Structure formats: C-alpha cells, structure tokens
C-alpha cells in the first residue's frame, strides 16, 4: 500500500465509495424486494446513496486534479483502489442482513454527517448537509425494521441475530484511525471517527435491545477496506456486474 499524497482525496474516496458500494448492493433488491412497498423504499434508498456518491466522487475528482470524473472513479477503478468499509461490500444474503447492515451504517452516518456539516471545508459541509436528511430517513426506516423483525417471529428473530453476528465484526472498521483520519482531524475537515464510537454503541445497543437482539461480544474487527489494503472476495464480483457496461463500452452515455 502506497501512502496517498493527498489525504483529502483519500477521505473523499472513503465517503464516496461507502455510498457507492452500499448503493449498488441496495439496488440489487430492485424488482425482487419482499413486498412492493419495501422494494420501492429500497430503490429510493439506493438512489439517495448513488446521488451522494456523485457529490463525493465529483469533489474527489476535482481535488485529485487528474481530469477524471465521478463516473471514471466509479466505473474505471479496480477493487484494490476502492476505499469503502468491508461491511458494505459483503453480499445482501437476505432481507434481514440487508436491513441490519443498513441500520449499523445509518446509525453511524447520521452523527457522522451531522458533524461534517461543521467541516472547515465548505464543499464537504454542503454535501453533508444535503446527505444527512436522507440518512435520517434511512435510519428511521432501518431501525424500525430491525425492531420489527428482531422482535417478530422465531424465524425472523433467528435470521436477524444471525445477520448481526455475521456483520458485527465488520462494524468496527467504521471507527478506524489512521494518518488520513488524523490529517482530516488536524485540518478541521472531519472529526476522528473514533470519537463517535461511544454514542454509536449507545444508540445501537438501545435499538438492538428493543429488537430483542443480543449484541455480540467478540471484539474482533475486520479491516482493510477503507485503506484499500485488503477487500473481501465479494467486491470484485460486485464490480464486475456494476462496471461491465463502462468497461465494455468506455465513455458510453445515454
């Protein structure tokens, strides 16, 4: 792994890639949602996230200054250039895991984007202000769903607990702390993600208790996504679907 010469670019890739990868995963539900109403709600969430991606990666491309566009960054990079956390790239599996992941991420995004509104970088602040409203709605919806299914039938409860056990070791990566995080903190662009861990843990535990779900105790945390050091095997497969059109017909537009 080479040190990125520009921490702001690195930071913006993390922001954009998180939104892009979760947005694409969420869009995989389009047409196969468990109910028409959930299907369209998931599609709306995916579109919100892709919209946020355009803003983050658009700014990232400007900061990089190599004449690349948001589209180039989304569709012409390989897996090892992505900076999303691993939790967002693992497969949807079932509706339960999809919603638990959404919830764990939303519970981070709402305080994170709220804090970014005070960023010393005006563009970051503007993107966060727009995105946080969407994140708040996503959180309301995902938290309600986690409670309803966690405290639902024996089968829904078992699936939600299994999803939580699977995803929990991936959640710690959200609170990583490396030289990029330090640089953003020093420049007043973003708070240290670590500083959100305690309140996140509190709000998540609160919802999981209402959902009758047990918080896993294993402290192990996967990492490697947000630094690009090591993604899971799943990201490459996802990108092969997501990028096939631009890879086959570079520059194609409609």
């Amino acid at each position, binding site marked *: 792994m080479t040190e990125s010469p520009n921490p702001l670019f690195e930071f913006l890739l993390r922001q954009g890639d998180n939104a892009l990868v979760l947005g694409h995963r969420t869009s995989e539900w389009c047409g196969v949602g468990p*109910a*028409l*109403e959930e299907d369209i*709600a998931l599609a709306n969430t995916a579109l919100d996230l892709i919209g946020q991606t355009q803003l983050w990666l658009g700014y990232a491309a400007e900061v990089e200054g190599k004449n690349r566009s948001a589209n180039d960054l989304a569709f012409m990079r390989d897996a090892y250039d992505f900076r999303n956390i691993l939790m967002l790239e693992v497969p949807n599996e079932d509706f339960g895991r999809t919603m638990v992941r959404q919830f764990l991420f939303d519970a981070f995004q709402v305080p994170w984007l709220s804090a970014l509104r005070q960023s010393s970088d005006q563009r970051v602040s503007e993107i966060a202000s727009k995105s946080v409203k969407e994140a708040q709605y996503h959180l309301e919806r995902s938290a309600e769903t986690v409670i309803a299914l966690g405290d639902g039938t024996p089968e829904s409860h078992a699936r939600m607990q299994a999803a939580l056990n699977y995803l929990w070791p991936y959640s710690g990566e959200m609170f990583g702390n490396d030289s990029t995080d330090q640089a953003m903190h020093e420049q007043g662009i973003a708070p240290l993600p670590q500083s959100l861990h305690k309140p996140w843990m509190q709000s998540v535990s609160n919802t999981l208790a209402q959902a009758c779900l047990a918080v896993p105790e294993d402290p192990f945390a996967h990492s490697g996504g947000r630094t690009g050091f090591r993604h899971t095997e799943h990201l490459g497969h996802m990108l092969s679907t997501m990028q096939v059109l631009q890879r086959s017909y570079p520059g194609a537009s409609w």
Partner: protein
Amino acid sequence: MTESKEWPLWEIFIRGQHGMSHRHVGSLHAPDAERAIKNARDVYTRRNEGTSIWVVEASSITASSPSDKGPLYEPSRDKVYRHPSFYDIPDDAGNM
C-alpha cells in the same frame, strides 16, 4: 376465519400544497399506521408531490353501495333549483 398473514391495506391521502385538500392517491400495504405513512412517502411522494400525508385503514372506510344508487342520487336530479345558476350576475361583478 383464519388470520391473514398479509399486511392490512391502507388508503393514502396526500395534500399537494398548502391550502389544498388531501386527495386520495391510491392504496398500499403496511403493518401499522406509522409504517403506512413511511411507505406512502416512498411510493407516492418520490417526485416531490406532498406536504402532508393521511393514511386510513381501508377496512375503516364505509362506502356507499352501487345498488343504492337510485335512492341515494336520483332524487336530486330534478332539483335544478339547488344549483346557483338562476341569478343574473351584473357585468361589474366579473367572473364568479
């Protein structure tokens, strides 16, 4: 009667702008009223249509029956004097 596993049906009413009345826009399924509002937000206000949403469980609506049409509506047919169309409106009043 066996209990249905389907979510109940909700009728959705949306007010487009301040001052307008809520208008029936369609129906959807949801487990409860709160979720029905969220689903309505996602299904019916995607193009910035709404400022207010009402939901009501479809089973709570009492509707007139088509077979009652005669007694319900026909008696008003020959009572044209109930329409305010027998006044001469002075030109100065403009459009009413």
